[in-house]
C-alpha cells in the first residue's frame, strides 16, 4: 500500500512538472493588464501575420489598429470629409500630377532615427517589389517618381492625373504608414519587431497574433497617447467577439458587421459606425455567357431584393443598399436607386428563354457568412422563377481568390466600397481597373470615373459620380447588397476613439476610465 501511495505521488509529481514545464514553453498569448494610464483590449477578426507596414492589411478588422498605432499616419480624412494632417504638414498640387509633400519637423522614429522624406521614398518604393508581397503594389504603381528636395520636402510625380491622391494615401495603409530605411536590412525580422513614429510601440507580438502595445514616450504629440497600453487580439467568430464585449473580455471590437452592437449599447457601451460608399456586391462576369447579355444581369438584379438578403442572412442588422452613395455625398441623388421588380425579372427570364438562352449560371461561393447566405438566397429565390436555374460551387477563400483573379466565375460575391466614390468605384468599375473582375467595359462610366478623379471642380466631380451611378444602375455590372462600413463597438468606459473615412481606427486620443 505504501508502495502504491509512493508511486501515485510520484506520478502526480511528474504530471505537475510536465504541465509546469510545458506551460513555460507554451504559448505566450493572452493579454496583460497595463499601467496606471489605462489599458484596453481590442479584438479584430483577421490575423496580421507580419507587422511590416507594407504587409499589414489596411482594413478595419485587420491590420488597421496595429498600423495606425505603430506608424501613425501622414494624413487622414474624417468621415465628414475633412482632411487632417499627422506626420505630414501639407500635400498639395496645382495640376493633379505633381504633388509637394511637406513633413512635420522634429519627428523621430521610436529607434531615434529622424523621420524624413528619405523614409517616405523608401517606404513607397519598396511596395513595388513583387517579392515583398504587399497588397498596396497596385496603389504604389500610381506613383511614378519621388524626388527629395530636403529632409522635410519631396516632390511626387504620379503616373497620371489624380486629384484624389491624398484619399488614396488615406485608404491604402501601406502608403500612410512610413517605415525607417533600416527596415530594408531584414524585412522578415522587421515585421516581427517593427519601428514606427506612432503613438505606441510593440512590447510583444506573440505567435498567436496577440499584440501588446505600450505608449511611445517619445511620441511627437505632447500629452498623447492617453492610454498606457493596448492589447490587440484576434477572433474570427463574430458571435464570440460579441460575447467578449458582453463579458468585458474585450473593450473595443473593430469590425464591419453590426452583429452584437445592440447588446453593446444595452450594456452602456457605444457604437461608432462609418458607412462606406458602395457596398458588398454580387458581381457578374461579363466576359462570358450568360452575363455578357445585359438582360441576364438586369434579371438577377430585379429578382433579388437586398432587403430580403439583409433580413435572411444578417438578421436585418446591416443596411440594404438602395442608393449607391450615402446622403452626405455631393453626388447623392434620391432618384438613383437600385430597383427590385420581380415581374420585370420574370419578363427578362422569359425573353432570354424565347431567344433560346434560358438563364443558367454557377454562383462561386466562399466560406464567409455573406457568400454562403447569398448562395442559399439565390437557390431559394430563383427557384420561384421560370426559365432560370443556378448551381452553387463552394470553395475556400484562397481558392476563391485565385478563381476570381483568373476571372473563372459566372457570378461571385465581391465588394465595391470605400470612404469616397473614387475609392469605392474607380478600380471596380473602370475599364481595365484592377478590381474590375467582371470585365465591365463602359466608356461613359470610365470617362466619368476619370473626370471624378482628375477635375478640380467639385460640382463637375459630383456630376461625374452621378453619371457613374446612372451607368451602373442601367448596365447592372453588379447587384449591390448591403452597405459596408466600419463598426467600432466600445465598452462604456472607453472614449476618444477616432476612425477615418476609410474605417481605420485611431487610438491616439482614446481613454479608459
Amino acid at each position, binding site marked *: 500500500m505504501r508502495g502504491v501511495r509512493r508511486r501515485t505521488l510520484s506520478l502526480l509529481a511528474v504530471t505537475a512538472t510536465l504541465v509546469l514545464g*510545458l506551460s513555460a514553453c*507554451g504559448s505566450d*498569448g493572452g493579454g496583460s493588464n497595463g499601467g496606471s494610464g489605462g489599458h484596453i483590449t481590442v479584438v479584430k477578426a483577421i490575423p496580421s501575420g507580419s507587422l511590416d507596414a507594407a504587409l499589414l492589411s489596411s482594413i478595419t478588422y485587420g491590420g488597421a489598429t496595429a498600423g495606425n498605432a505603430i506608424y501613425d499616419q501622414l494624413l487622414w480624412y474624417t468621415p465628414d470629409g475633412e482632411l487632417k494632417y499627422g506626420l505630414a504638414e501639407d500635400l498639395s498640387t496645382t495640376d493633379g500630377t505633381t504633388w509637394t509633400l511637406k513633413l512635420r519637423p522634429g519627428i523621430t522614429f521610436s529607434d531615434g532615427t529622424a523621420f524624413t522624406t528619405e523614409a517616405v521614398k523608401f517606404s513607397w518604393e519598396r511596395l513595388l517589389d513583387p517579392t515583398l508581397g504587399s497588397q498596396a503594389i497596385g496603389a504604389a504603381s500610381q506613383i511614378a517618381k519621388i524626388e527629395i528636395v530636403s529632409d522635410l520636402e519631396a516632390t511626387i510625380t504620379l503616373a497620371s492625373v489624380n486629384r484624389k491622391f491624398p484619399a488614396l494615401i488615406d485608404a491604402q495603409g501601406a502608403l500612410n504608414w512610413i517605415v525607417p530605411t533600416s527596415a530594408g536590412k531584414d524585412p522578415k525580422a522587421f515585421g516581427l519587431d517593427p519601428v514606427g513614429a506612432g503613438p505606441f510601440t510593440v512590447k510583444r507580438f506573440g505567435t498567436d497574433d496577440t499584440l501588446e502595445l505600450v505608449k511611445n514616450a517619445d511620441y511627437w504629440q505632447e500629452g498623447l497617447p492617453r492610454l498606457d497600453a493596448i492589447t490587440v487580439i484576434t477572433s474570427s467568430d463574430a458571435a464570440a467577439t460579441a460575447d467578449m464585449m458582453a463579458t468585458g473580455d474585450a473593450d473595443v471590437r473593430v469590425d464591419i458587421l453590426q452583429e452584437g452592437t445592440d447588446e453593446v449599447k444595452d450594456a452602456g457601451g457605444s457604437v461608432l459606425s462609418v458607412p462606406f460608399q458602395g457596398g458588398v456586391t454580387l458581381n457578374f462576369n461579363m466576359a462570358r455567357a450568360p452575363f455578357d447579355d445585359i438582360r441576364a444581369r438586369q434579371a438577377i438584379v430585379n429578382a433579388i431584393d437586398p432587403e430580403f438578403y439583409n433580413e435572411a442572412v444578417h438578421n436585418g442588422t446591416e443596411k440594404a443598399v438602395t442608393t449607391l452613395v450615402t446622403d452626405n455625398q455631393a453626388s447623392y441623388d434620391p432618384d438613383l436607386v437600385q430597383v427590385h421588380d420581380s415581374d420585370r425579372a420574370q419578363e427578362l427570364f422569359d425573353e432570354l428563354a424565347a431567344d433560346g438562352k434560358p438563364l443558367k449560371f454557377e454562383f462561386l461561393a466562399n466560406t464567409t457568412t455573406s457568400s454562403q447566405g447569398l448562395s442559399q438566397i439565390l437557390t431559394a429565390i430563383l427557384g420561384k422563377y421560370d426559365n432560370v436555374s443556378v448551381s452553387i460551387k463552394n470553395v475556400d477563400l484562397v481558392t476563391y481568390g485565385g478563381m476570381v483573379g483568373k476571372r473563372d466565375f459566372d457570378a461571385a460575391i465581391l465588394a465595391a466600397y470605400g470612404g469616397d466614390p473614387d475609392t469605392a468605384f474607380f478600380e471596380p468599375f473602370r475599364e481595365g481597373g484592377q478590381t474590375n473582375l467582371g470585365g465591365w467595359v463602359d466608356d461613359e462610366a470610365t470617362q466619368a470615373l476619370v473626370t471624378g478623379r482628375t477635375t478640380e471642380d467639385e460640382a463637375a466631380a459630383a456630376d461625374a459620380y452621378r453619371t457613374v451611378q446612372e451607368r451602373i444602375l442601367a448596365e447592372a455590372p453588379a447587384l449591390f447588397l448591403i452597405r459596408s462600413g466600419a463598426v467600432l463597438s466600445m465598452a462604456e468606459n472607453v472614449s476618444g476613439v477616432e476612425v477615418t473615412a476609410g474605417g481605420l481606427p485611431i487610438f491616439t486620443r482614446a481613454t479608459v476610465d
Partner: protein
Amino acid sequence: MMSYVAAKLGRALFVLLALSFLTYVVLEATPGSVANSILGPNATQQQVADLEAGLGLDRPMLVRYWEWLTGAIRGDLGVSPLTSRPVAETVFTAAGTTIQLVLLGTALALLIAVASALLAARFPNGIVDRLGGMLTSITIAVPTFVAGPILAYVFAVKLGFFPVAGFTPFSESPGEYLNSVALPVICIAITELATYQRLLRADMIAVLTEPYVEAARTRGIRERRILFRHAFRPAVIPTTTVLGLSVGRMIGGTVIVENLFGIPGMGKLVAQAILSRDLLVVQGVVLVIGVVFVLINTLIDLAYGFIDPRVRVRERVS
C-alpha cells in the same frame, strides 16, 4: 528491451516519412497558394505569379519537399512566408499549449472516470452506477461543437465565471491561467471520460468475478484492498491502451475546442495554416502530431510492464 524499442522507432520513422510526403502531395494538389493569402483577393495573376517566384514556389514539388525533409532532419522546419517566423518556433509554442490542454483534460476525465468506475464496480446497479451510466450516455451523445458553445454560454456569458475566449500563460498568472483553460479542459474531459468510465467499469466488474479475487475474499482480505490491489491494475490495462490512442488523437483533434475558446494551440494553428495555404506550418504540425502520437504509444507499450508485472515476466521468459 532495447531491440524492441529500436524496432518500434524504426517503424515510426517510416510512418512519419510517409505521412509527411502524403501531406505535402495533398496540399500541393489543393488550388491556390500562400501567395494568394498574402496578396489578398484583389491581386492580379501576375502579382501572384511574381510572389510565388519570389518565394520559390514555382520550383518542382519534389525539389521543395527534399529541401524541407533535409531541413526537418536538422530541426529546421523552414520559415513561414505568411508570418516570417521559424515554423519550429511557432509549432512548438502551439504544441506546448495543446499538450497542456490535453493533459489537463485527460487528467480530469481520468479522475472522474476512475472514481466513478471503482464505485460502480464495487456497487453494481447501485445509485452511482446508474447515475454514471446515464451521464456517460449523455456525454457520449453530445459532440464537442455542441458542448463547447453551451459551456461558454452558461458559464462565461451568463454566469461570468470564466472568460469567453483567450489564454493566459501559467507563467504570467497561475490564477488567470486556470481561469482561461477551465472551460476548454472541461469540454475535452466531457468528451473523453465516458469512454474511460465505461471501459474501466466493465473490466473491473469482470475482474472482480475472477477466481483469484474470490480466493482473496475467502482469505478475509478487505474489499477495499481487493479493489485497489488485486482488481484495479489488471483492469486498467485496456483503459491504458485507449488512453494512449485518445491522447494521441486529441493532440491533433483539439481544433474545435481551440477555435471555440480562442486557445492558441496546434488545432487553431493548423486550421488557419490550411485555410491560408501555409504549407510549411501544416507540415510542421503534422510532423509534430505524428511524433507525439508515436511517442505516446511507445510509452504506453512500455507502461504495460510497469502496471502489470506479468508482462515483464512474459517478456523475460520469451
